């Protein structure tokens, strides 16, 4: 990562260009498993963002002190500490959410999104940049999971965040809150994201061509 990249770009890349779910396909296990409702998606995203922020800050501060031979082991210990803190706090303060997310909170430890950001970014950049990167990635992950959860909840239960949005006559598609619904929805979301990106790339290419022609003519 070049130091020239602006802070805003560092944050925004997590939202779309390097979105952990839609572009990098990281952390798909919780993405598919817990997004049966918008609240679950938001809760999972928030928990992951918290761990990502704390771990990125810590690893970035310690990056010069940790010998490279034991860096992965140290990263995992730091990540596991924050995940356990989130798990205990959630059980204490938000027992309902903790119950519905179940084993997937402890499993944030092995979410490759988090270890990936430590290895690729936090261990090579200063604390402020690491925080911004973690926040961008976390927000991108949270938004994607919330959207996925909301789509599945609307079709599978007729509600969003627990509020009824579909008419009473609507027959819920139970398949949408079953695992198959997660794959179907994520597949469609990836398709839409890819098609948007393709269009953007084509438009950029077209502009570059026009620019070249314009330069030649001049």
């Amino acid at each position, binding site marked *: 990562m070049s130091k020239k990249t602006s802070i805003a770009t560092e944050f925004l890349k997590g939202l779309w260009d390097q979105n952990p779910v839609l572009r990098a396909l990281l952390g798909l296990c919780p993405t598919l498993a817990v997004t049966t409702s918008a609240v679950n998606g938001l809760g999972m995203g928030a928990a992951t963002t918290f761990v990502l922020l704390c771990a990125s800050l810590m690893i970035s501060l310690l990056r010069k002190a940790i010998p490279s031979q034991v860096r992965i082991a140290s990263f995992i*210990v730091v990540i596991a*500490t924050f995940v356990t*803190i989130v798990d205990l706090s959630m059980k204490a303060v938000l027992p309902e959410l903790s119950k519905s997310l179940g084993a997937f909170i402890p499993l944030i430890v092995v979410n490759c999104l988090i270890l990936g950001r430590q290895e690729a970014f936090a261990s090579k950049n200063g604390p402020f940049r690491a925080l911004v990167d973690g926040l961008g990635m976390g927000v991108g992950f949270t938004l994607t999971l919330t959207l996925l959860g909301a789509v599945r909840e609307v079709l599978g239960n007729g509600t969003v965040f627990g509020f009824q949005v579909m008419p009473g006559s609507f027959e819920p598609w139970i398949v949408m809150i079953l695992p198959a619904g997660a794959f179907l929805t994520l597949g469609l979301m990836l398709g839409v994201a890819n098609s948007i990106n393709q269009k953007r790339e084509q438009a950029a290419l077209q502009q570059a061509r026009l620019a070249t022609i314009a330069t030649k003519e001049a």
Partner: protein
Amino acid sequence: MKTTLQMLATLIVVGMFSGGALSLVNDWASPLIEANQAKIRDEAIRFLVPGETTEEVVAQDGLTAWKVFTGEELQGWVLQYSGNGFQDKIDIMIALDPERQEIRGLKVLDDSETPGLGTWIRLNADHEAALTAKDDRNLGDEVDDSKNYPLQFFAYGEGQHLSAAGDLKVVKGKKRSQLGTTEVQSITAATISSVAIVDIINGAVVKLNELLAAQGGVS
């Protein structure tokens, strides 16, 4: 050698800080977690045995039961029990009448059954327990036979309840009015969950009776 020491020192320091932080968080969180669990249990007891009640705990070998009183009068027994469901443990609380002959209510505290299918064990138990409580434990005319409740507990002739002798079984395709006091209607497309919950109920009442017999026939 220097690198080895540096590696060791790093891991030790990181591990120590991690352990310290977790110990602090645990000190703060564990009383709150316990309070949450106690609250869930209390609410379930209120739900199963409505009214102003006091409880006396009877516990042995990991089994917890409550004798529920109104003043001096024994209202019934509430028992927490768990067993294997379709994918994970199902944790339930059931209420028995004072003589422990009938099941008066059921609350599913925790389950990981298939959403929309197996989870009907929870929804239906809640629904019927609410009905039972409202209607003075007598479903009578409130039961609409044309509605197909996926799993039917506590619904037989007037004033009758499920048997608490540990002899419940799952049946298929019967009308609510035809069900006997040892029969529970299966959930369509969730037979495993239906059988599991009935097995757990049977196990729970047998365990409670064993526990009380061991304590010298408390009744």
